């Protein structure tokens, strides 16, 4: 086996193969792996391969040197031609056909595909390459196909289906040959071959690379032409395998192909753009897929779970193995479920498979699930993004191969896809925290305040200040929600301070009133501890400052109208008090309330008082803060005024939804008359609070009552001013806003009122318990 004479063709072919196998580029030693694969590709029985290996001396050396390699190749040719393996045969047999390698396709294909990725996609396999005869055969053919694809699209040779046995195989062979020949002929074959073969590295070993898809994609017409020509030159030696004739090497076409190979990438890309991408999904196909998707998963943005997909695709009657492969290709994010894009890709692959197309090794680009940046990156390297990458599954597979950019872009895309995928997922997770509306629940602060807060009353001062501020400030500003919303601190001072602040800030008299309301409320609530409250009230009343209006519940101090009204007529501290108080009372309750409480109750008095104030206040705010009315009300009954006040009290009534209890309390102060009126008023106005409680309250707490009346006055004034609202409101928007505010205020007032009532209820219950205890204690004596 020493002396080996090779023909030129053989020489070239062998050198190509050697280069291919010589991945280490040592020019001397061929990697065992590649060589073995190559030998396996020769489709010789393993014993023969072993024999060959021994004969060529590789076993001796442990590796394949160039000479050993050549010898081996020659022996392979010998074996393939059916001759016995003999050392002598190496040189003796003349006209030995070149060794044919079938399996090697993977590599060849890969190479080809790598070189001509575009081709793969393109190959409009239009009948030029007849369908793979059969699965089994297809396998072998796969490699051929792979080889096909890369073939230069640019060669214009008509795609002549290799009129040989396995239609595809010739193509593959051709390609390979061409590659080899090209390498030999023109460009540094080594380069070409090496370049082409390197990608195949991965593909090796036994199972035919699923380049099926590739071949389908590839029906490179130009290739075929060259193939044909090649073929002619070299009659197929065996029918079972398309002869990989090396003679084609000498073909000029091969040269052409080689040349094209060199520029393959770009050319392919360009030319590929001209070809139809067999993997592209047409619109009607996509629509069909979408419909199918809907049958499984109505939500187009949802997933199809693996089990459902399995059932669905099993219906296609494809073998499980292939379905498994299709799943691997299409489940891009490997999550065990199919999105719409993934489903379409899988369906398309199934369809292609059923039509005879072989499955690609890698998911064709056109089938990749659309990710955010996929298109961009895909297009960047390729002018024909669709065609480029998808067509070269093999090329894609060997990511490591230093193939032209196509290869590289694919892995990048892959990774990118992953990243994109994750990115898109992540992005969807962005959430915007719901912004808590600070204006919400203005009532809360009030209610908070309402709760027992020892009030150190120095309301007078504050009132005074507030009033002044209010006066100075722009009145027309509605009691802004900030005012309402501002949680009045429990501490009196802070409350007052805040109120002051509000006053300054908003310059709304109402705001001041608001605060006053709060104060009043607190006062009312803390009846027990309001040691100062009465004083405060009195003090407040003294300098005509509006004692904290009893209708703290009103708290609609920020009623627009009221403000305006008040602002219009600043009348001093009282006014400020009034201003503070005008809780925007929704006009609604007016009529109801007015009717209710007006039923000749004492409450009416209060109402009347309010009402009397209200009309006055309409023009003048200060009237509202007319605590004199309170006093009058508290001091004496004014039944006479009821009648008058009724209408006026209507607004007051309304506002008094919160004020109701206050008034009731107030009324209780007056006791007798109050009780009934209170009850009635309350009942009419509000959900019947425990009336007896009211009575008790009144009996127990005068201070509170005192506080309440002012509140109720305020409320009344507020109510009174309500009617003026429409007048004052020039614009609808303002009116709406004002009404909204008023409603809010009313809500606040009611909430406060509710809390106050609750508190009162508790207190009363406690008292009752204490009384009962006393009773118990006394009882024994009584019995005695």
């Amino acid at each position: 086996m020493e002396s080996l004479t090779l023909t030129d063709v053989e020489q070239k072919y062998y050198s190509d193969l050697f280069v291919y196998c010589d991945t280490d580029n040592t020019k001397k030693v061929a990697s065992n792996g590649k060589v073995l694969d190559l030998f396996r590709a020769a489709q010789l029985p393993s014993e023969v391969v072993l024999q060959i290996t021994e004969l060529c001396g590789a076993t001796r050396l442990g590796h394949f040197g160039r000479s050993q390699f050549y010898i081996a190749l020659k022996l392979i040719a010998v074996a393939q031609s059916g001759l016995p393996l003999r050392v002598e045969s190496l040189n003796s047999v003349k006209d030995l056909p070149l060794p044919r390698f079938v399996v090697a396709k993977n590599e060849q294909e890969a190479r080809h595909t790598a070189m001509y990725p575009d081709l793969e996609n393109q190959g409009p396999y239009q009948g030029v390459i007849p369908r793979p005869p059969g699965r089994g055969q297809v396998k072998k053919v796969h490699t051929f196909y792979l080889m096909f694809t890369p073939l230069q699209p640019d060669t214009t040779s008509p795609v002549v289906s290799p009129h040989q046995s396995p239609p595809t195989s010739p193509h593959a062979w051709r390609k390979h040959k061409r590659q080899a020949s090209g390498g030999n002929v023109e460009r540094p074959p080594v380069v070409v071959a090496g370049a082409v073969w390197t990608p195949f590295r991965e593909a090796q070993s036994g199972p035919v690379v699923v380049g099926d898809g590739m071949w389908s994609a590839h029906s490179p017409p130009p290739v075929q032409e060259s193939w044909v020509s090649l073929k002619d030159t070299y009659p197929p030696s065996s029918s079972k395998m398309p002869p990989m004739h090396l003679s084609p090497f000498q073909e000029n076409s091969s040269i052409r192909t080689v040349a094209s190979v060199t520029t393959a990438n770009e050319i392919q890309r360009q030319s590929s753009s001209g070809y139809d991408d067999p993997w592209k999904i047409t619109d009607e196909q996509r629509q069909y897929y979408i419909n199918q998707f809907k049958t499984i998963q109505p939500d187009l943005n949802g997933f199809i779970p693996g089990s459902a997909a399995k059932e669905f695709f099993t219906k296609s009657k494809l073998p499980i193995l292939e379905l498994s492969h299709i799943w691997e290709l299409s489940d891009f994010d490997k999550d065990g479920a199919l999105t719409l894009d993934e489903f379409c890709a899988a369906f398309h692959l199934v369809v292609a498979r059923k039509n005879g197309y072989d499955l690609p090794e890698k998911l064709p680009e056109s089938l990749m699930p659309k990710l955010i940046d996929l298109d961009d990156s895909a297009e960047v390297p390729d002018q024909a993004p669709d065609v480029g990458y998808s067509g070269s599954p093999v090329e894609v597979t060997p990511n490591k191969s230093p193939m032209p950019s196509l290869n590289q872009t694919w892995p990048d895309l892959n990774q990118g896809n992953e990243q994109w995928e994750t990115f898109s997922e992540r992005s969807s997770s962005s959430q915007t925290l719901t912004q808590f509306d600070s204006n919400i629940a203005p009532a809360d602060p009030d209610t908070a305040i309402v709760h027992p807060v020892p009030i150190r009353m120095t309301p007078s001062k504050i009132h005074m200040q507030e009033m002044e501020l209010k006066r100075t400030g722009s009145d027309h500003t509605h009691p802004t929600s900030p005012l309402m919303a501002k949680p009045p601190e429990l501490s009196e001072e802070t409350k007052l301070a805040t109120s002051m602040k509000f006053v300054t800030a908003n310059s709304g008299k109402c705001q001041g009133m608001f605060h006053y309301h709060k104060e009043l409320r607190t006062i009312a609530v803390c009846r027990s501890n309001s040691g100062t409250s009465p004083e405060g009230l009195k003090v407040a009343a003294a300098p005509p400052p509006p004692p904290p209006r009893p209708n703290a519940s009103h708290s609609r101090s920020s009623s627009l109208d009221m403000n305006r009204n008040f602002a219009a007529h600043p009348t001093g501290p009282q006014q400020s008090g009034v201003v503070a108080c005008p809780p925007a009372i929704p006009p609604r309750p007016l009529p109801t309330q007015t009717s209710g409480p007006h039923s000749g109750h004492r409450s009416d008095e209060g109402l009347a008082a309010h009402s009397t104030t209200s009309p006055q206040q309409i023009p003048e705010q200060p009237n509202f803060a007319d605590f004199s009315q309170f006093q009058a009300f508290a001091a004496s009954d004014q039944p006479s005024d009821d009648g008058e006040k009724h209408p006026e009290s209507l607004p007051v009534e309304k506002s008094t939804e919160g004020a109701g209890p206050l008034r009731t309390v107030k009324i209780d102060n007056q006791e007798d008359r109050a009780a009934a009126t209170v009850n009635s008023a309350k009942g009419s106005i509000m959900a019947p609070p425990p009336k007896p409680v009211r009575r008790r309250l009144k009996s127990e707490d005068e201070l509170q009552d005192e506080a309440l009346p002012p509140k109720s006055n305020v409320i009344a004034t507020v109510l009174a001013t309500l009617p003026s609202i429409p007048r004052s409101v020039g614009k609808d928007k303002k009116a709406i806003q004002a009404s909204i505010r008023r409603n809010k205020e009313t809500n606040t007032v009611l909430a406060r009122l509710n809390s106050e009532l609750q508190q009162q209820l508790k207190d009363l219950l406690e008292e009752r318990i204490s009384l009962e205890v006393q009773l118990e204690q006394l009882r024994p004596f009584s019995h005695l």
Partner: protein
Amino acid sequence: MAVCIAVIAKENYPLYIRSVPVQNELKFHYTVHTSLDVVEEKISAVGKAMADQRELYLGLLYPTEDYKVYGYVTNSKVKFVIVADSSNTSLRDNEIRSMFRKLHNSFTDVMCNPFYNPGDTIQSKAFDSMVSAMMVQAS
């Protein structure tokens, strides 16, 4: 880098075995089989400590004159065995770990495939290609 890579199921039958030098395949099969004993020993060595405390990577199971055997067990008692050639520049532990990680990931992908029935031999091409990538380098 590896000469042989094997995936053993929980019941200790092979799901996937692949060797690079085809001739010695049987030898590697035998090697992997014997390594199972070592794997079992290491698994049980943890004792009461459950899988949480037991690391998946088992490390070098046992060396022979020609090669070293590394093991890796998943929480579902699926075992990965890598037979690496000793003559090669000794692979760092990290490299082996990364190989196992890749194996595990690929195996998970295979499992996710609804068409794969657990217990079947692994015939995924993606898995094959990944394994080939790991093995080709070395040979």
